[in-house]
Structures are given as structure tokens and as C-alpha cells.
């Protein structure tokens, strides 16, 4: 399990636009680097971040080797109803990780 940090406001007003930040520890090995003996270090990156809000997709990102190590991605969404926001990262070598945050929507 990689360490992941997600930042979702605990409470929001209905209809408010909220910022969501996510960070996951991952080497994001590009597959273009070489060792001292000239061998290519095989690629090992995260390829996708999928974010759902009460089951509906709100954000998806396809990542390439150009994304820096420990991918940091932020985006916005409208707080519609109380519930859970689920982050799912997938990547090379069968990498898969899910993190969940809950949000309470008032008004």
C-alpha cells in the first residue's frame, strides 16, 4: 500500500464549488532512465486516477511518465449531497489503490 493523502472539505454548503486535492506516494519510474551499466530501468507508473462521488464519476485523469514522482492532482467539484468521494489509482504491475473521504452537505 502506498501512502495517499486526500483533502476534501468535511462540510460544504449545497451547490458550493469545492477544491479536492490528492497526493499518493509512487516512484513514477519513467522507463527512459538507465543504470550505470546502461540497462533501461523498466517503466513503473500510475496510469489513471478515477474519482467518484456517491458512485458517479466526477473526475478522471490519464497520467504519462511526464507526471512527477508522488503524483499530486487537484480539481474542483460541486457539493451536491452528503456522501463519499472515492479515489482509485491504477498503474503498472497491477497497482490498484482506493481511498475514501466523506463529506457532509448542509442547506
Amino acid at each position, binding site marked *: 500500500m502506498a501512502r495517499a493523502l486526500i483533502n476534501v472539505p468535511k462540510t460544504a454548503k449545497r451547490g458550493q*464549488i469545492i477544491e479536492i486535492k490528492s497526493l499518493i506516494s509512487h516512484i513514477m519510474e*519513467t522507463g*527512459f*532512465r*538507465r*543504470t*550505470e551499466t546502461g540497462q533501461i*530501468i523498466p517503466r513503473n507508473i500510475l496510469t489513471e486516477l478515477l474519482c467518484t*462521488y456517491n458512485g*458517479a*464519476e*466526477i*473526475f*478522471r*485523469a*490519464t*497520467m*504519462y*511518465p*511526464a*507526471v*512527477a*514522482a508522488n*503524483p*499530486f*492532482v*487537484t*480539481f*474542483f*467539484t*460541486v457539493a*451536491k449531497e452528503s456522501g463519499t468521494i472515492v479515489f482509485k489509482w491504477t498503474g503498472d504491475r497491477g497497482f490498484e489503490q482506493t481511498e475514501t473521504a466523506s463529506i457532509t452537505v448542509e442547506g
Partner: protein
Amino acid sequence: MQRSKQSRRAVLGGLAGAAVAAIVRVEPASATPAAMKSAIRTVVGEAQIKKGKVHIDVPALVENGNSVALTVQVDSPMSEGDHVKAIHVFNELNPQPNVISAYLGPHAGFAKISTRFRLADTQTIVAIAEMSDGAFWSASADVVVTIPACLEQL
């Protein structure tokens, strides 16, 4: 005399060989502006790309290309009928022309994404926004890099 000619030829041949080897080794590890154009065409298709609406926030001078903060914002009401469907970011000179593709919708409320990415050299970054009406808008930014990323040896 004969001997020195031989060695001169050998040396020149060796140099030429080394030059060819250097080209062969470098080439597959570097995208070109043409590679970026074809990557953009893969996403955009035959549609016309207009300049504007997209704003890239990236430092003009980067000391370390391994982690560069990038923010892309698109002017859009983000309503059901008029919103940003996707934001694609491309680079010219990294080994691969793609950086990130983010898919949004009217539920985003605000078309703005941030991430951190790598830069292998001083180059131009291009961001393209795909709108719900099928139009494409773009912006570009120049970044000077002093310590490049991606290809360094361990």
C-alpha cells in the same frame, strides 16, 4: 607515411561510428515538436484548434525539472450545455509528448486542474481544452529548465 594514413582513417572511421552510435542512442529517448503535433492530432482529430480561453500557470524559470508545478484553467460557465470535457497537456522535448489528460464535466463547477510534472529540457508546453460543443481551445507556455529530468542516470 602509409601507416599514419591508416591510423588517420581508422580514427576518422571510429569517430564517425561514435557519432552514428550517439545519434542512435539519443533519438528514441526524445520527442520532437513533430511528435507533439502528432500526439495532439491523435486527441483532436481534424478539428481546428483555436487560441484562447485556456490559461497555463507554470514557472517561467525552473531550477529542477523533476517536479514542476502546473495549473491549467479554462474559461467556461461549466453548465450542462457548455462545459469543458477534457484538458490535455503536451510537451515538446520529453521522451513522450503527453503529460496528462484530465476528464471533467458540468459537475466540476470550475475548470481548473493542478499537478506536478517533469521537464527534460527547456521547451514549450501546450494545453488543449476540449469543450462540450466539440471546439478545441489552446494555450502555450515557455519554460526554461536548468536541471533536466527523465533521462538522468542512477
